[in-house]
């Protein structure tokens, strides 16, 4: 049992996130039952709100802002994610070939290619990390969904390491006009609205989802049909699937 003084003393550390992981967990649990600390934390967060702006701004690469908007809107960018490792492997092979060729040419070109190779190796590591959500998922859950003659399902790969899920929704027909297919997190404090899932009856929808902010305990997920534009905190439409971890 940690004395309350400890929490009072470490409030700023909690906001700054300098506590060790187990201390941070204890603090988060404590906040659930302590209104004083919650209020103090909110105040500290406001007081330090602008601190991150002490860093000089980094100009975005050309095209990044457009791609960020598209990404937030859920529009597909670039090739499907599963294609990326193959494309990277191919370009890495090409780059390595070019690298050997460059040995016979100028040193500057050689350096440039080595840098390129380093960048690709990093990209590959990152892609592996994304795939890691599937490969190293601590938990995989599946629910079958029947819609008329269509048989589909929802598959969840939960990676506790990075607190992210890869969710595959497949085999569902395109939504009716005025309706959307809505993903929900089931948490210990109720349903939390996730993202809209674009279904087209042909290709599966693949979503990489961070855990909802402020949700302490995510216990499962649900898929419903909701009226388009609905923003309610709880589902109002037909439930297609319901999965508990």
């Amino acid at each position, binding site marked *: 049992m940690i004395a309350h003084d400890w929490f009072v003393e470490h409030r700023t550390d909690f906001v700054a996130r300098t506590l060790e992981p187990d201390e941070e967990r204890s603090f988060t649990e404590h906040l659930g039952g302590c209104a004083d600390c919650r209020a103090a934390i909110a105040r500290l967060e406001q007081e330090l709100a602008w601190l*991150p702006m002490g*860093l000089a*701004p980094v100009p975005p690469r050309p095209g990044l802002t457009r791609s*960020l*908007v598209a*990404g937030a809107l859920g529009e597909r960018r670039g090739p499907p994610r599963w294609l990326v490792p193959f494309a990277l492997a191919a370009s890495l092979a090409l780059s390595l070939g070019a690298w050997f060729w460059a040995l016979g040419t100028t040193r500057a070109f050689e350096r440039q290619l080595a840098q390129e190779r380093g960048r690709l190796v990093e990209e590959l590591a990152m892609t592996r990390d994304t795939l890691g959500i599937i490969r190293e998922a601590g938990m995989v859950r599946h629910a079958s969904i029947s819609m008329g003659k269509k048989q589909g399902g929802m598959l969840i790969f939960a990676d506790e390491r*990075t607190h992210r899920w890869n969710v595959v929704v497949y085999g569902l027909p395109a939504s009716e006009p005025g309706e959307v297919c809505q993903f929900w997190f089931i948490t210990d404090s109720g349903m939390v609205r996730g993202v809209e899932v674009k279904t087209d009856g042909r290709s599966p929808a693949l979503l990489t989802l961070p855990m909802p902010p402020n949700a302490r305990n995510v216990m499962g997920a649900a898929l419903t049909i909701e009226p388009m534009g609905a923003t309610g905190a709880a589902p109002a439409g037909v439930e297609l699937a319901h999965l508990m971890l």
Partner: protein
Amino acid sequence: MAVPDSQHRLPRPDAPGPRLLSDAREASLAAGLIARDERALVQLVEVATPWLLAVAQAMLADRDEAEEVVQEAFTIAWRRVDLFDQSSGRLMPWLLRITRNRAIDRLRGRRRRVDKARRLLALGGLGAGSAAPVEPDEAGTPGWQVHRAVHAALAALPPDQRDVVQLAYFEGLTHSEIAGRLAIPLGTVKTRLRLAFDKLRGGLSSLKDWVV
């Protein structure tokens, strides 16, 4: 080890004076997001991206990964704008907080600090990864005045306190990791951080406006 240096990039004397993004304007941006107005999202992305990239890149020392984190922040802002509490905060600090938390989660989840330290060394120091060149018309950069004020508050800290803030707040290290990095006792780390944050809270409390 130093706070990212921007003193040499202060606005030119003849640069246009700053304009405040009023509470009303920011509220209308937030209202636009809530109303699913894509133009509000576009405006927000244009204004906020350089600052969010700075936070994510300083932590992760990896541009591609930083862009992923910024993407996550905007995705949350667009899809979960219901989580934004207009009564208790501003849009920009909310985005900064999401970005910083996501970057720290990644750092801790992946245990990649060793790699990162190696990359930072290769980059030639702490400032290099986070303080990329800025366009010459900084005074026109939305938020530049806020940056100057925060920078001044950081610069006013004694060097030993500034160093622990740099490692803790801008690089996401925990108390014990900072103690290891600087080879100083854990208690000293905590004391320095506490003193520094007390000063920063005082120094930043007057900053209310997001300035364009």
